[in-house]
């Protein structure tokens, strides 16, 4: 895979120097432009993977440049991270509405820029260069490797203790810990303590019902703290408070969880907000076989994300020389949409990439899986999925993994 190309558009040579220095230990191609007009030219010529774009520049400023990038069909999909000293609400809303992927508030550290870019492209250390010094908040490799199996810390800021309790219960199945604060005033000192102890939360869930736009002010204060600039914030709101929800999204809340909370979905919604790799929850190895275990309580969000992430996972198996996958459906007794989507997609991926697969399960109906999948692919939620079965002949189902492994 070629090294990612990063375009820095800034009129300050100091910023170019800092960015160049920050990325020096990584295998990247850096290209530079001194204003928005040059930035458009270089972007068209170089087709970078990420653009770092200053706001205040002569000739053409960053806002105008962003508008032109987004209007150009050839360039509109390149993710843009804005660098701005103007972190006020008005400015943030303006650039958020223009489709910017992320923004970095000046002053910033090199580690902060590397952290943000590493969310969009894979940064590998240069093979000939020494591995980059461990920089607090940078560690892109660690960020990339962060999975839903990690011991994550969630801060819940909500006036109702029962909400925090139910969230704690929902995420405990992933081994995540919840700390709760009843309001922004209590959350601030707690956050200061976690920053000092280098134990900042991995995600923050905030009630949008605090008076005086408390949730929006809280968002701003969190973003002002360099140690917390990359921590995702999710809003908690009653379904009908759409104005608050829209305002929160425009401010920068990455997702809104509506009350009453769907606790089955909640861990997966939070995982999505944190851009976590959820495959380690489902995939494991057994001898020369890979195993994917699908639980009955797979949520809709979990299903969509597992389906998406499985494509890469299965391709990685092929690259690593694996050729056998056991699909473990023990415990599945009811074929709901999330399960059908995921199983059909995994089987299709295996067929496409030439991976042999076997199914394990204890439900007698499982042999009818081709019929079940073929029938359900007609429903709206699944009609985009390809049917992995050429016909509806009954499927051979194995009682356990050992039997399935022996059947390859």
């Amino acid at each position, binding site marked *: 895979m070629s090294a990612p190309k990063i375009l820095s558009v800034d009129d300050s040579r100091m910023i170019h120097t800092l960015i160049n220095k920050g990325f020096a230990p990584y295998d990247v191609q850096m290209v530079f432009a001194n204003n928005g007009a040059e930035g458009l030219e270089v972007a068209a010529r170089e087709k970078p993977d990420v653009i770092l774009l200053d706001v205040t520049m002569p000739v053409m400023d960053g806002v105008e440049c962003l508008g032109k990038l987004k209007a150009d069909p050839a360039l509109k999909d390149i993710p843009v991270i804005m660098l701005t000293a*103007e972190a006020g609400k008005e400015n943030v809303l303006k650039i958020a509405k223009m489709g910017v992927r992320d923004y970095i508030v000046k002053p910033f550290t090199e580690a902060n820029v590397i952290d943000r870019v590493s969310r969009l492209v894979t940064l590998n250390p240069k093979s000939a260069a020494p591995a980059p010094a461990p920089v607090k908040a940078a560690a892109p490799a660690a960020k990339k490797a962060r999975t839903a199996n990690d011991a994550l810390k969630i801060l819940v800021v909500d006036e109702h203790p029962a909400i925090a309790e139910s969230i704690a219960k929902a995420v405990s199945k992933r081994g995540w810990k919840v700390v709760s604060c009843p309001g922004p005033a209590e959350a601030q000192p707690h956050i200061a303590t976690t920053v000092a102890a280098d134990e900042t939360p991995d995600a923050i869930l905030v009630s949008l019902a605090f008076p005086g736009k408390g949730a929006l002010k809280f968002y701003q204060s969190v973003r002002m703290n360099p140690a917390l600039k990359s921590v995702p914030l999710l809003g908690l709101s009653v379904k009908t408070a759409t104005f608050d929800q829209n305002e929160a999204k425009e401010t920068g809340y990455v997702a809104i969880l509506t009350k009453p909370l769907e606790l089955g979905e909640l861990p997966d919604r939070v995982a999505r907000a944190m851009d976590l790799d959820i495959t380690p929850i489902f995939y494991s190895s057994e001898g020369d076989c890979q195993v994917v275990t699908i639980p009955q309580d797979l949520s809709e969000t979990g299903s969509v994300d597992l389906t998406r992430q499985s494509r890469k996972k299965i391709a990685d198996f092929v690259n690593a020389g694996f050729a056998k996958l056991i699909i473990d459906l023990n415990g599945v007794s009811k074929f709901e949409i999330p399960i059908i989507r995921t199983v059909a997609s995994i089987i299709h991926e295996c067929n496409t990439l030439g991976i042999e697969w076997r199914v394990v399960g204890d439900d007698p109906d499982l042999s009818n899986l081709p019929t079940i999948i073929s029938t359900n692919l007609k429903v709206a939620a699944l009609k985009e999925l390809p049917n992995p079965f050429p016909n509806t002949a009954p499927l051979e189902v194995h009682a356990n993994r050992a039997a399935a492994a022996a059947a390859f």
Partner: protein
Amino acid sequence: MPSPEKPSSSLFIQTINRYVPEVMQTMVGLSATPGVGIENYPQPSKLKGVTGSIGLSGKVNGVVYTAYSEGLSKHVAEKILGGAAGEQDVSDVVAELTNMITGNLKSTLCDMGFNCTLSIPSVMRGEEISVSAKNATICVGNDYAIEGSPDSLRVVVFAALDN
């Protein structure tokens, strides 16, 4: 709709006292300790050395100046760039740091309802640079002791607020 509460001189000083140390610590790795601050900074005034300036226009009209001695500006530039800094490098660093301080001041003012836009930074050099701003009702300044330097950084803000 009620008029927004006007930012006071002390708020301007509090704001620059917050952001000057943050910018210096984050970008340069040096602590900047604020002095007592002056709420009636005289104008016109004389600054010397390497001085960055950025204009504010909109509901706030004015100028922010950051004045470094030659030695301090070179020290700061070389610390940031990690090597020898020529005159152009020094100007570039002073301009960018002025932009960061002023950008954050602007954000505070905008959040209070005093929207404004910033000019492109410019940098002047001289022994007697006369600074002032017409109709300014806010005239504040403060000196910041910079870690490891005998010289202070002076930040001056002249501003007029819309009614």
